[in-house]
């Protein structure tokens, strides 16, 4: 049984909904495209600050974008 608490996200889904590319979202929040890609694939867990900025950029609530 896997007890690890993994933070999932819907960044890719909401980004596509807004018609933004990874590069455009990255430019909006001030990180590199690689960081957005790593977040979307779950390789990197963003800090609270970046997570909130991403929510603002995507115009979604935190709990809509990030979930367990």
């Amino acid at each position, binding site marked *: 049984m896997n007890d690890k608490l993994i933070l999932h996200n819907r960044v890719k889904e909401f980004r596509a909904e807004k018609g933004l590319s990874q590069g455009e979202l990255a430019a909006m929040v001030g*990180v590199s495209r*690689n*960081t957005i890609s790593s977040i979307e694939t779950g390789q*990197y867990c963003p800090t609270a600050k970046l997570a909130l*900025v991403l929510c603002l950029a995507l115009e979604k609530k935190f709990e809509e974008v990030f979930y367990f």
Partner: protein
Amino acid sequence: MEEYELASEENERAETEPEGAREALSRDEILSRARTENTKNGDERQRSQMQWANYAGFIAMEFACIIVMFSKIFMSDEFTPEFFCIMFTGIAAQNIVQACVNKNRKTRTVFIVCAALVTACAVIYWVFWILGLCGIRL
């Protein structure tokens, strides 16, 4: 008990009514500030460090294998080509996968170079092994 209640009341007040002038920033203002913070952004640095640590470990392992291979060839009379065949084929496969999956141009180039190098090593050992099996000693 009373003290605890007072403290919790104060905490509650602090949570709902934070003291000091809390600036209410607009969405655009926050995004604009986030953009200008780009170079010193902790996430960017942290992710980059994680990625490079991963690559460094991977590449160090490969170089260690190459050094072992050459030391075995030049400094020892006996070496087991079948072991190196398996090892280098595995590493070559890993490198090829990394080179295919990686989208970063710089790191992709590094992986392509490593993949070529390790595949060459694997091929050399396969040749050695097959020749050894045929009874030909070099």
